[in-house]
């Protein structure tokens, strides 16, 4: 496993590339991806939390700076947020590598509804791996994309508690929630 962080020295935010690499290594082990080679590219000019992954050799993760940020102290590093952001991205990579997500659009081409449903699936699994997760945040995100009603809430729970869904199944639940 190799983890490379770009840039190696940050100019705007107060992040340390070694610290980011250490968290990434920890997450790769936690998710059973210890043999994965990773390049993490941080765009420090953007204060957003977006994480975009591209499966390849090595795996490439593009991160907007707020994904690793301590939101209480802007421009400073948060290991917890880094763990959480990388965890979500790496789970998408793992899903894609499983063969059950071959028909899923690339990260860049995911619609906001597709992104929300996959985030729900990923964060639910991260919570069971012991990461600190605020479920209501993801429930609100799901409702924003699927509707504020009881039927959508039931579908959220179905995805949140699942561990072995395929892209086809995820899409079907999502479409059911919107219907």
């Amino acid at each position, binding site marked *: 496993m190799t983890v490379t962080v770009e840039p190696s020295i940050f100019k*705007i935010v107060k992040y340390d590339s070694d610290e980011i690499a250490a968290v990434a290594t920890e997450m790769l082990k936690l998710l059973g991806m210890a043999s994965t080679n990773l390049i993490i590219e941080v765009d420090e000019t953007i204060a957003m939390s977006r994480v975009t992954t591209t499966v390849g050799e090595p795996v490439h993760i593009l991160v907007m700076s707020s994904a690793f940020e301590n*939101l209480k102290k802007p421009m400073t590093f948060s290991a917890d947020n880094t763990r959480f952001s990388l965890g979500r991205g790496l789970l998408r990579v793992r899903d894609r590598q499983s063969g059950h997500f071959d028909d899923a659009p690339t990260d860049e081409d995911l619609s906001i509804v597709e992104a929300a449903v996959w985030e729900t699936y990923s964060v639910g699994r991260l919570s069971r791996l012991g990461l600190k997760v605020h479920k209501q945040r993801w429930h609100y995100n799901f409702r924003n994309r699927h509707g504020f009603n009881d039927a959508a809430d039931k579908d959220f729970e179905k995805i949140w508690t699942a561990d072995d869904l395929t892209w086809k199944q995820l899409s079907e639940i999502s479409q059911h929630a919107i219907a």
Partner: protein
Amino acid sequence: MRKFFPVQDLARDERFNQATNEERMSDPRGTSNTGVIRKARSTNRLTPSRPDATDAARSLMHGIMVGEIQALEGAGRTCFDFVTGEEAPFALKLDMARQCWDEARHVEISVKLSEWMGTELGQFVENTVLFAAACSQDPVLRLAGVNRALEGLAIDVFTTMKEFGELAGDPYLAFCEDWMLADEVTHVKMGSVWLRKITEDDPERRKKALEFQSVVDKIFSYGGLRSESDESPILLARRFRELAGFSDGELTEIADVSLAALNERREALEKTLASSPA
């Protein structure tokens, strides 16, 4: 009880971390760019169609919540800091007391909305610039800075959040923002009425107050947070501002100041990137 309370002494529990406006402005990062972000959205306006809409709305809601706390503290100070009759009319203080009542209700509503949206209190940094604008030693400047500039911004923010709730189908958000918006229009109108009344025979004082309002407006444009450009998340709510007593000329001035703030932030980001060592 102490008068003219300094911003750095505001009481908060350990959940909150405060930042001054200078600290906030030292962050040159943008919230839009080319590539992935540009592909994902054609506008920065805060609508549910933005990929980051949920988190952006949560962050803004938290900003509203701490802003309401500071607005309550500011209006409360104005009730107490000035001698009744000599420095501030009783009726003005009565209006400020009414505002305290409104702001306390807004704090409660904002806390509940934040929880509904999945935000922990204190999760985001608290910018103390609102209370800083309420520290002027002249009550007229406070009315100009807080009631007209800041509560004016609140009109823009609540209008945007109300529309966000309507578009997303979030019944609580749309309903609560609509009710708070009605209060904000009243607060701005109180500021407009008292500013004109107190400075009726003192054009110099009125000029100073309006200059102060303009400065606060620029600071609170948040480097382009609010303007009439699609690059700003918050749209200038002209109609509600008219109801609150803003003239066409004043609205045009605020729009110009906001656009200038947006351009300054863009230039600052470009400068930072150009001057950074490779």
